[in-house]
């Protein structure tokens, strides 16, 4: 596990994209996800003495807490984030703006029903179904027993399916009625 700065650079190289994707999928905002990624690694550095062997689950566990309390996390590290160079501090996604806007729209559609779930269910679905952690890794990330991950995942999936069905039902009720063509 990374205990000095050089090791830590390696940890960042191995997992920064995965942490960024996780943050993005949880918050649905590119620039916030980018700042949260920095915060996750700053927090990881602060807690490096408590690190455990599974690097990515450990980082995603920290990311889960950071995302849950993002306002506080960003405020806590505001000084460090304020020292980012200006060109990094402001998003610049001109290169693939259209693709990003499209992905953000799709993500927003999924996140609306997802956020209606209890946070503990959101966490296990995000870690297991979206990030691909197995039960053991998710349990390590969240600091809960494997059985708890299984049961939360099962309940969370059912609740999400119900929320999606509700959303679909509402959408169809809000859709304008189909106008029948007059008979020829």
């Amino acid at each position: 596990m990374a205990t000095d700065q050089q090791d830590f650079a390696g940890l960042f190289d191995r997992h920064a994209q995965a942490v960024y994707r996780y943050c993005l999928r949880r918050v649905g905002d590119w620039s916030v996800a980018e700042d949260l990624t920095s915060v996750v690694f700053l927090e990881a550095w602060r807690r490096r003495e408590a690190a455990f062997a599974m690097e990515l689950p450990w980082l995603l566990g920290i990311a889960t807490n950071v995302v849950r309390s993002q306002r506080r996390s960003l405020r806590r590290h505001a000084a460090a984030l304020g020292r980012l160079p200006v060109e990094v501090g402001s998003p610049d996604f001109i290169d693939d703006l259209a693709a990003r806007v499209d992905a953000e729209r799709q993500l927003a559609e999924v996140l609306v029903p997802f956020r209606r779930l209890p946070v503990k269910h959101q966490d296990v679905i995000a870690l297991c179904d979206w990030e691909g952690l197995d039960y053991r890794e998710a349990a390590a990330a969240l600091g809960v027993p494997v059985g708890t991950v299984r049961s939360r995942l099962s309940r969370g999936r059912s609740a999400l399916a119900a929320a999606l069905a509700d959303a679909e039902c509402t959408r169809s009720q809000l859709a304008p009625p189909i106008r029948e063509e007059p008979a020829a």
Partner: protein
Amino acid sequence: MNETVPRIPEALELPTARLRARREHLLRELERTAERPRRRGRGTLVAALAGVLIVAGGAGAATGVLPVGTELPLPGASGDGEPRYRSHRVVVATGTAAESGRWEMTFVESDAGPCVGLRLLDRVPPGAARPDLHEGCGDSGTLTAGRVGGGDWGGRPEFLVHGRAPEDAEHVRLVAADGVVVTTSTHEGPSDVPGDFYLVATPPGLRDAHVSWIDRNGTLHGPGAPVPGTIDYSGRPETPSRPR
């Protein structure tokens, strides 16, 4: 990927140049922390302070309020029926109540769910050597309510309704059947502990009290968590915190 879970768009990766810039920034920040004189490890501080707490409590002296973020060592082994703890107990909020005096709220994860505890530093129960900790554990609800107080340790009776609130809570409002309404600001707690925390001091005799939380836009989120029955001061709560 489970079929019931909707697919999410394969998120675009952070562009290489931006990733590199973040990496350099991170390493500079680590450099800065390395240059600063390293503070004493929290664990060391905890052990030292806890030692002081116990010794001072044993001597019947008043104890100091620990700073928010202080980690308290857990007992070596849990007794029968006690939850098994998964982390250190952390001080998440402190304050002073009009009658009960100084208080310290703690949080710890356990196999029975998150536990919120309250320790009254100026009110040592009769026969006790040191301030005792009242703790209620329950599965991770977003708003919990526990109640401490009304004991015979001296002073006018006062109940301290306290618990955990969602991260977005700016205030917590307690409403009781007899028309009592008390609103209090939440405490943020340390950054690595999820959620906010609150404490409301109330007079005794509240009936059918419940708490709700208010976000920064002033929206009240209800119907709220019921405040459980009285918790005596001898140790174990009669009713665990009720998650919502």
